[in-house]
């Protein structure tokens, strides 16, 4: 990862935080998608847990965390599937 990519990753990560905090859910979802494709969904997991803690969601249902775990599993599965197809074609 270059310095520029690192800056992009940090900016996007902060953007995701503020978009969800400002209730721009759709834009936040789009940013999550971009971040997942460009980098990895694994780093979004602690963010989801912290956001759930911040909003007190652990008293009821930690929606962000559950969604983040599901999204992480889905994205990794898709990523490995795509890699398998790519390697078979190569």
């Amino acid at each position, binding site marked *: 990862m270059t310095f520029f990519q690192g800056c992009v990753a940090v900016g996007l990560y902060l953007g995701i*935080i503020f978009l969800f*905090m*400002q209730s721009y859910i759709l834009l936040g979802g789009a940013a999550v998608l971009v971040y997942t494709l460009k980098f990895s969904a694994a780093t979004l997991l602690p963010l989801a*847990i912290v956001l759930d*803690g911040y909003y007190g969601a*652990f008293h009821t249902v*930690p929606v962000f965390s559950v969604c983040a775990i599901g999204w*992480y599993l889905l994205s990794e599965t898709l990523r490995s599937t795509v890699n398998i197809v790519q390697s078979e074609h190569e």
Partner: protein
Amino acid sequence: MRVQSQRSYKRKRTIRIAIATTTVVICGWFLPAAFSTASAIIMSPFHATNQWLEESSSLIPTFIRDRQSLQADIEQLENQLQVNSRTSVTQQRLFVENNRLRELLGADKENRIVAGVIARPDTLPYDFLQIDRGINDGIEVGAPVFVGTDIVVGLVVHTAAQYSFVELFTTPGFEATIFLSGPDVVAKMYGMGGGVARVSLPQGIPIQIGNLVHVPSVEPGVFGKIAYIENEPTQPEQYGYVAPNISLNSLYQVSVGRVSQISQSVEEIDQRVRSEIESRLVVPGVSLEVSTSTDQATSSPQTEI
């Protein structure tokens, strides 16, 4: 072989991360207060920034907030506009309908019956109307038929249970005494047919196109205007041709008055003609509001002293 082991390693790592995260979430579920406190500490810089964005009066947050509030306002106003446009169309329709019905009913002056025109001169012998109200609705033979507030167009000549026939003033052979405003003369009007009546006057009376033709025996009763003048100096009479203001084909609702609106006595008709002449100099809407002070001055005994 190496690819296979890499894949399995990645899969195992993914599963391990998912299990670890799930464990943390479950721990958070059991210790929500501790997680909230820890999250509040971690999020404190973001919280401060978020508060700054939401509440600060600096340029950027204000710009963002104004934009958001303006967008919300625009959406709300657009919705309101749509609702109002629909409402205004409905209101306008009801307003027009209300005005038309009030006009037809003579608005508080006398009791009239609204009737729809179901046959006109193109389907009936000329200068007759058939209306959809009859004896059952209180229509009487001889009752005047109005279009609008005071335009009288004819008289009911036949009534059945549920319909009636109206003979228009323009029916050939129909005679009526009219008062012609302008030259202010009383004359006779004869129906000519074809939606036209004729007023005959002696030579020398200055009639003009546009002079109003009143039917003083019907209250209120304006029939129409002089539309054409036939004046040959060699003839002893001149003729003014009168046409109603409204085309007969455009009539679809009329109002029927009572027989009592037709005056029977000559004195009554004379009185109406006189009052019509006497009120000619009154220009509606042009007056000074001095009556109150005058009344006070005359009624106050202190002023007299």
